[in-house]
């Protein structure tokens, strides 16, 4: 069974690092930005190795009887771009708004660059906030919008003007200073919103579903652009998204949330490869859920009961990524699930095979086009599906353990298990 859209994480690092060409525009303005905090590479006494910009401790919030946020703790390292990822209703926006001070928590604390900000009003927290629907001031020009925070802080006019010009160049909207927000496209507006938030040099930048209101193509462009911008500007950024692909492409770290709780924290690739629980496994990328009991023993290595520490219980399930499955027309000695091909869908570079191993157990895999050409499957064929890497979820014990099938078989063979 597949959960969530498929993400092609194996296709190389999709993170957009500044390429030689397009990033040139940023380099002109590099000097204008505050240098990365000196303490970051000169720890005072060795105790504080990393510099924490945002620290959330034991945050809880209830709306009536609905527990929106439930004892959430995490920290964001200085200069990092971190995603709060979760389905709708997971409390991610509430957490972000609490950090900004736009909402107050029932309990817990928020530290911003080492200072307790829990009871500080929004105005004094020094955060930049980007809203999903831009929230640009419609009656002000782009210049006045970006300069608003500077004006409030009483920055001298000439200096504010210089700063706004700098930011206009940074967001590549130099010629739009005297236009009004209504004369800009969605993507341009969101860039202006970002510049407006950055203008007063906030301690941290918070973005609430920043690309949610944009159409797919603009969203992709802006995502890449944001990543490049962050690599230039290095302002600690925390952004909320429900789109796991967005979190993968943009962030250094992902905090996965569900039902108001933190499920797992880590770099995108780690979360994908070593999910802590079935939810994270299913939410980050596609996964097949298959019954472990029906995995047939091959001539090599036998069945899972032989190479697992604990024999698989009736309620144990195997979680397998589509690319961790091999499909063969004939048995080759490894453990396998017998399956029938239901549908073959060419998707450009890969071919998607929809299979079924039992009436209630559909699965799908994707194989490179050249490989499937050689095999030449047809709908209705009986095939053998062999896992390379699985996670075993035991419903009763609640455990979720990864198993490298090849390695496990090898070890069990070495220790003298029968063939």
């Amino acid at each position, binding site marked *: 069974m597949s959960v969530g859209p498929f993400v092609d994480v194996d296709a190389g690092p999709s993170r957009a690092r500044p390429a030689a060409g397009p990033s040139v525009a940023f380099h002109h303005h590099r000097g204008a930005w505050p240098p990365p905090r000196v303490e970051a590479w000169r720890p005072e006494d060795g105790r504080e190795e990393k510099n924490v910009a945002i620290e959330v401790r034991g945050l809880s919030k209830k709306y009536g009887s609905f527990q929106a946020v439930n004892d959430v703790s995490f920290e964001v390292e200085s200069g990092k771009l971190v995603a709060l990822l979760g389905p709708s209703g997971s409390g991610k926006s509430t957490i972000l708004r609490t950090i*900004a*001070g*736009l909402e107050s928590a029932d309990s817990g604390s928020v530290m911003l660059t080492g200072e307790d900000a829990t009871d500080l009003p*929004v*105005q*004094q*927290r020094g*955060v*930049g*906030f980007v*809203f999903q*629907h831009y*929230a*640009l*001031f*419609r*009656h*002000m*020009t782009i210049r006045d919008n970006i300069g*608003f*925070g500077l004006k*409030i*802080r009483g920055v001298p006019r000439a200096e504010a003007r210089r700063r706004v010009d700098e930011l206009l160049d940074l967001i590549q909207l130099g010629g739009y200073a*005297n*236009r*009004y927000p209504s*004369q800009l496209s969605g993507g341009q507006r969101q860039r202006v919103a970002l510049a*407006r*938030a950055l203008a*007063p040099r906030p301690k941290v930048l918070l973005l609430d579903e920043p690309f949610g209101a944009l159409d797919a193509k603009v969203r992709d462009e802006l995502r890449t652009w944001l990543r490049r911008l962050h690599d230039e500007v290095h302002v600690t950024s925390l952004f909320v998204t429900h789109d796991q692909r967005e979190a993968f492409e943009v962030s250094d770290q992902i905090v996965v949330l569900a039902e108001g709780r933190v499920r797992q924290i880590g770099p995108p690739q780690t979360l994908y490869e070593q999910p802590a629980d079935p939810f994270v496994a299913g939410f980050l990328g596609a996964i097949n859920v298959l019954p472990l009991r029906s995995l047939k023993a091959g001539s090599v290595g036998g069945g899972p009961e032989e190479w697992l520490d604990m024999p698989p219980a009736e309620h144990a399930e195997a979680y397998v990524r589509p690319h961790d499955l091999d499909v063969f027309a004939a048995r080759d000695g490894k453990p396998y699930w017998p399956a029938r091909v239901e549908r073959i869908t060419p998707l450009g570079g890969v071919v998607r095979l929809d299979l079924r191993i039992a009436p209630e157990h559909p699965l799908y895999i994707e194989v490179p086009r050249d490989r499937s050409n050689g095999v030449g499957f047809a709908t209705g064929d009986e095939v053998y599906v062999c896992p390379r890497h699985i996670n075993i979820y035991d419903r009763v014990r609640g455990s979720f353990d990864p198993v490298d099938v090849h390695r496990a078989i090898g070890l069990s063979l070495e220790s003298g298990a029968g063939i």
Partner: protein
Amino acid sequence: MPPDLEPEPTAAPLAFELPLKGREEASGWGRRLLIAAVLAWFAILILVPGAALVRQAFAKGWQPLAAALIDPEVRRVFALSLGLAAVATAVNTVFGIAMALVLVRQRFFGRTLIDGVVDLPFAVSPIVAGLMLIVLYGPESPIGGWLDARGIQVIYALPGMVLATTFVTVPFVVRELAPILRELGEEYEQAAHTLGAGRWRTFWSVTLPSIRWGVAYGVTLTVGRCLGEFGAVLVVSGNVIGQTQTATLYIADGVESFHPEGAYAASLVLAAASFVLLVGMDALRHRLEGAREVTS
């Protein structure tokens, strides 16, 4: 397209064109009929009576009209009407904005009740509204008696007229602003907060500019209604000629008794003032908004 797939190139388009043409014409006629009906309705209700008034006012030429308007009594009643309108509009604008903000943004016990009651002055007959004030502040009432003992006369005096005019025009600004504020949402203000702006600063530089056209329309309607107010003011003012007579009361008097020329002249001025107010507001908005579109 391969050439063998195009038989009879003229037959197909014709078959399509005929029914379409017929339908278009029918809908065209329907549209014209609708426009004509609206124009006729507009003429019967507004244009013709307006023209009749103008004709009557100019019946004896310019001189009587000018003379009637120069009459110090006429100038005095207009001054009173304008003064009442100014005070009532100022009060209702400030409180209307505050009330709309509270009703839209705050959640508190009794909010729905107040939301409904705001329209009461509009729904209740102005005469009834005036009567309420007399019952409350009249010389026989406890409050009225208490105030009277301290030399403050409310009823049959200016304070009562201000109260009556203000009461009757409460809903306009609130009703104009509430939907605008609701549609606007709080994100703009929150954005200003995150940029360091306090509540007061946010109100002046973000909230108020965002709702300024709503405020302008609310004010226009309030002023128009204040100038035209008759019933409530009639009850509380006592219509003391030379003291508490407003323009509308003067017109009513004139029609009933001795100087109809003055009544026509005053009516013409009132109608013209309302017209200029509404059209002027619209024109101003178009000019300002248009200017913004051009700026680039």
